[in-house]
């Protein structure tokens, strides 16, 4: 079978799997976040009572340990404070853990992590970015990996889901100042969604050959007579949540291209599935919770449309590289695993950059200039197609607010989305949201390319060098975490700057989103009439997709022109 045909089959298989899973998973999540603690009636659906209603016993333990009243709901400032406080504590804990790992068990003789790197890594994992300025197997002991990084893989994804659910409740509810309880949402996201899924996924990964042990590694004698160190570790368990939670922080430096993390093509494809499954299911949850599944379908339609277009373009750009001879040999093969091949590499690269995951099974730096520009542009979309776990949904909903505002005016009404009027306050919050990442990306890049400290990390000059810096700041600000190699980012400058970009890129939008949710929940709901802008039809899907592209295009066109575009057209 030719590599192209295999590529088509892989995509088809992936689509079928996602379509099959998004319904039950989306419905399940809607149930998880609407039962008991929340006053919304549980959406109709399978009447199975396999699982107990109300709080689970393990959840009660958590609430008691944290000391929260799980049955009371929070107003938006309290919800927001809970998100921020939890994240701050997480950063501090993770930082400390790295700094003292040499005194703790399972350190495997790793030294304390440098302060700059420790800060960067702490922020990186708490913000769901998983930018890794370090090399995993030679820096982090198993305890940090398991009790620090893997835990953050779960909770940072949980935070994203919680914030998205809070925004959805803003749309779904009316006349209330309560958004739900952050601690309940976070806990349930982990106990009822992430942990069960990750467990199943880890088993599959182990079956597929991903390593899972607590060994500090083995020295092996190779056939050629050399000695090779084979690092072991709890890889599969971490790998599962790395993809499911759109985290992307690899156990090994080579990430999913490493044979112990991504042993085969089908495991690689399974990983793509894992990282797409929750972001593509959340719109269904959204539709369910606002009581109109078509709304969720429209959102997922925009996400899928953008993702498909991006994948098609990237695959095309990669496949046509280098003239006839090279194309016969598989076109752009530099930086790729021959085990996966071109199409699967393009698929993985597209999926990982579109979901704020940042895991890689090939090196984006080695893509063709156009291919590299596309994975870069994927992140510039703001991680909304389908985006990170939770963050993709809330990002897309905020863009939908902007799209509805302009389009709503064009139908002659003060704009409303899902019955909520978009007035001065709502637009202030949405506008600021749109502003955050471009400011971070562009100012970060601008500072880096004119300062000596910034330039000293560049291994390439010219357009490609610019692309590497642009990629780094885009990746950090959008909480993706993947990197164009070729930039030595483990320097005080980049650790600090990218750390700040990650923190602001994660929490400023969250502040705005939770505030927006609060504003929306207080409002009543305007009835739908023939004069209301329909937000579930193909026309709106196209419009929203166009708005996403226009916002991104207009913002990043000049920077892209000087970076990958100049390289591609050279």
């Amino acid at each position, binding site marked *: 079978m030719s590599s192209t045909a295999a590529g088509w089959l892989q995509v088809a298989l992936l689509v079928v799997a996602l379509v099959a899973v998004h319904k039950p998973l989306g419905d399940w999540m809607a149930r998880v976040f609407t039962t008991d603690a929340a006053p919304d009636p549980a959406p109709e659906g399978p009447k199975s009572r396999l699982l107990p209603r109300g709080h689970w016993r393990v959840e009660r333990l958590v609430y008691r340990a944290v000391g929260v009243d799980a049955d009371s709901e929070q107003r938006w400032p309290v919800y927001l404070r809970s998100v921020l406080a939890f994240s701050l504590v997480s950063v501090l804990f993770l930082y400390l853990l790295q700094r003292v790992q040499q005194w703790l068990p399972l350190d495997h003789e790793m030294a304390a992590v440098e302060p700059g790197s420790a800060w960067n890594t702490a922020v990186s994992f708490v913000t769901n970015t998983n930018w890794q300025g370090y090399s995993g197997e030679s820096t982090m002991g198993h305890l940090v990996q398991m009790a620090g990084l893997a835990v953050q893989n779960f909770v940072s994804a949980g935070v994203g889901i919680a914030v998205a659910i809070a925004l959805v409740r803003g749309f779904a509810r009316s006349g209330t100042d309560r958004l739900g309880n952050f601690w309940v949402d976070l806990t349930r996201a982990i106990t009822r969604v992430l942990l069960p899924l990750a467990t199943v996924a880890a088993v599959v990964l182990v079956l597929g050959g991903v390593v899972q042990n607590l060994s500090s590694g083995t020295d092996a004698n190779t056939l050629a007579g050399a000695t090779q160190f084979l690092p072991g570790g709890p890889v599969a368990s971490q790998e599962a949540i790395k993809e499911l939670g759109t985290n992307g922080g690899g156990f090994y430096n080579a990430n999913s291209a490493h044979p112990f993390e991504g042993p085969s093509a089908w495991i690689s494809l399974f990983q793509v599935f894992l990282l797409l499954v929750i972001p593509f299911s959340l719109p269904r949850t959204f539709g369910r919770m606002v009581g109109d599944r078509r709304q969720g379908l429209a959102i997922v339609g925009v996400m899928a449309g953008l993702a498909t277009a991006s994948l098609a373009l990237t695959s095309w750009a990669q496949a046509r590289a280098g003239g006839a001879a090279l194309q016969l040999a598989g076109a752009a093969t530099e930086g790729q695993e021959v085990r996966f091949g071109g199409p699967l590499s393009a698929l993985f690269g597209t999926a990982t950059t579109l979901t704020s995951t940042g895991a890689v099974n090939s090196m984006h730096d080695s893509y063709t200039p156009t291919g590299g520009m596309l994975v870069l542009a994927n992140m510039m979309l703001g991680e909304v197609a389908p985006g990170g776990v939770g963050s993709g949904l809330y990002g897309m909903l905020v863009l939908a607010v902007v799209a509805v505002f*302009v389009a709503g005016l064009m139908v002659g009404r003060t704009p409303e989305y899902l019955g909520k009027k978009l007035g001065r306050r709502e637009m202030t919050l949405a506008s600021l949201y749109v502003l955050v990442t471009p400011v971070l990306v562009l100012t970060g890049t601008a500072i880096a390319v004119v300062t000596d400290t910034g330039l000293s990390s560049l291994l390439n000059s010219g357009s490609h060098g610019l692309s590497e810096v642009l990629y780094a700041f885009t990746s950090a600000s959008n909480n993706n975490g993947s990197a164009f190699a070729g930039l030595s980012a483990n320097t005080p400058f980049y650790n600090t700057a990218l750390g700040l970009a990650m923190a602001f890129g994660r929490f400023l939008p969250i502040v705005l989103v939770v505030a927006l949710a609060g504003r929306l929940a207080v409002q009543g709901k305007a009835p739908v009439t023939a004069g209301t802008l329909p937000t579930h039809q193909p*026309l709106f899907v196209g419009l929203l997709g166009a708005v996403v592209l226009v916002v991104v295009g207009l913002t990043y066109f000049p920077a892209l022109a000087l970076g990958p575009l100049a390289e591609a057209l050279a």
Partner: protein
Amino acid sequence: MTTALDRRPVSTPEPRPQQRAAIEWGPALAGAVRKLDPRGLVRQPVVFVVWVGSVFSTVLAITDPSVFGWLIAGWLWLTVLFANAAEAVAEGRGKAQADTLRKARQTTVAYLLDGAEVPAADLRPGMRVVVVAGQVIPGDGDVVEGIASVDESAITGESAPVIRESGGDRSAVTGGTTVLSDRIVVEITSKPGETFVDRMIALVEGASRQRTPNEIALNILLSSLTIVFLIVVITLQPLAVYSGAEQSLTTLIALVVCLIPTTIGALLSAIGIAGMDRLVQRNVLAMSGRAVEAAGDVNTLLLDKTGTITLGNRQASEFVAVGGCSDDEVADAAQLASLADETPEGRSIVVLAKERYGLRGRDLESAVFVPFTAQTRMSGVDLPDGRQLRKGAAGAVLAWVRAQDGPVPADVGDVVDGISAAGGTPLLLAVAHGGSARVLGVIHLKDVVKEGMAERFAELRRMGIRTVMITGDNERTARAIATEAGIDDVLAEATPEDKLALIQREQSGGRLVAMTGDGTNDAPALAQADVGVAMNTGTTAAKEAGNMVDLDSDPTKLIEIVEIGKQLLITRGSLTTFSIANDLAKYFAILPAMFAGVFPGLDALNVMRLSSPESAILSAVVFNALIIVALVPLALRGVRYRPASASAMLRRNLLLYGVGGVVLPFVGIKLIDLLVSLIPGIA
């Protein structure tokens, strides 16, 4: 000015002639120069940024003179001027009307009850003044004694005098109007400087214009876009320096101005002023811009039956023959019986006979007209040939026939019941001749729905607006008329309390309600409605309670008000879309101009094949300035509005202003480039 609104079949007063004048650019430009004061411009962030850019580029042109530098600086100033001119033009349109109103205000003397003269400026609410024929009423108030005909043309533009009398719903008078006959005593209700005319002047001049909620929200979005583009360009320079393609400050300023949404930013306030102005042209005064926006959002229209949906009086709609008479016989008799009847119903019978049966008026010199009395409940005529024709209420006419031992055809009962069931009023027609009487037929009188209203309500339904008819009729009659007119719902036997309750019920479901009213007992409902249009003939209380006043007192206008509100929002949205869509072409013009020198490959982006980097940048700036001027008429007139479903409207406007906004600047910039490249030092 030809908008869809002008071509309505429903009678609406023509916009005032002086309002339809062409745009006067001369005074507008003078106004534009005055508006260059940056303190005023801060309110419009987009224009303010262009102003700052103009100042900078001028300084640069002075310190480092070049043809390019001066041209860019010049066109940036023109951009600011054009933006200011757009606002000045819109404001100028209200000025003429304000001047007319000011003349009306120049009443200086008022006469108190005791004959004392006081300056009109000293009148306080509660004081009573006497106004006699020929005098101008010194202030707003209610007539508390007497009746007079009043010329209100100073305010309404309508020359026919109106009657104002004490008590009831026609007691309100407006300061500045003239008493034509008789003597009235007016109790003043407004403070000096806060009279109706004062408010009108402030409104039409735009002096009291406050930015509306939606305008503020849009301004926030535009400001945020402006900030994004500022950041894009500010950070572009370091990237350019890194790439070895450092740009001149003039070029960067030009890029910023081209990217920020100058088109909509420049036209935004003109659109708002023009929206109010369009209402003024239709003789509607909105007390706030908020009300105009709310009009676009209305979900439910409460319409009074009489005068809005139906003509004022019942009219004959058909003659039904009974007992074997022929239709022509009935028509002939009906006409004869009504020729001398001057009531509207009587006239309508004559009209129907003429239109349907070709019967002309006849000379009835020696006939004796029998007028309607409360006792007989019939009217008719005694002809010279001895025939006696009578028409009237079924019971009365039947009694008259029976009294003369006349037969009553069996089908009379069915016909009469049928007409009643359909909401109409049956008039029985009978003849007595030579001692025998018989019933000829039945005249069907009914409420006549105004021409074109059914189509209008169908349009409203497509726009997602529900119509509710308010009437004092009983439920059955009301339903029948509602069905004929295509009204969605009725509120029959309505009391003011019912109206208020209905509005509150609609609003509790999140709907916005619009209504008209004139009586004092309408005031609570007018105040409760989101859009409350008070009739100018109405009471002061009604006018105070509503947020709009219709000077023509035409309740049908509510529909136009809704359309004007929608048109205002559509204009904003369409021009915003257009403005942002323009940016694509500008990037394709400016980016290759900036960087193709260092990266020759980027010349591939120069799809317009512009002649030189300087001419490319200049052409984009010129296009950006000229498009503002080109769109001023559209901003003032409003984009064309056709009632349609939201999807249809969105599709149309997206195509026109979104896709059009992408394509047009490619053409425009190319054309300008062809001209600009002729300038020495640019090509």
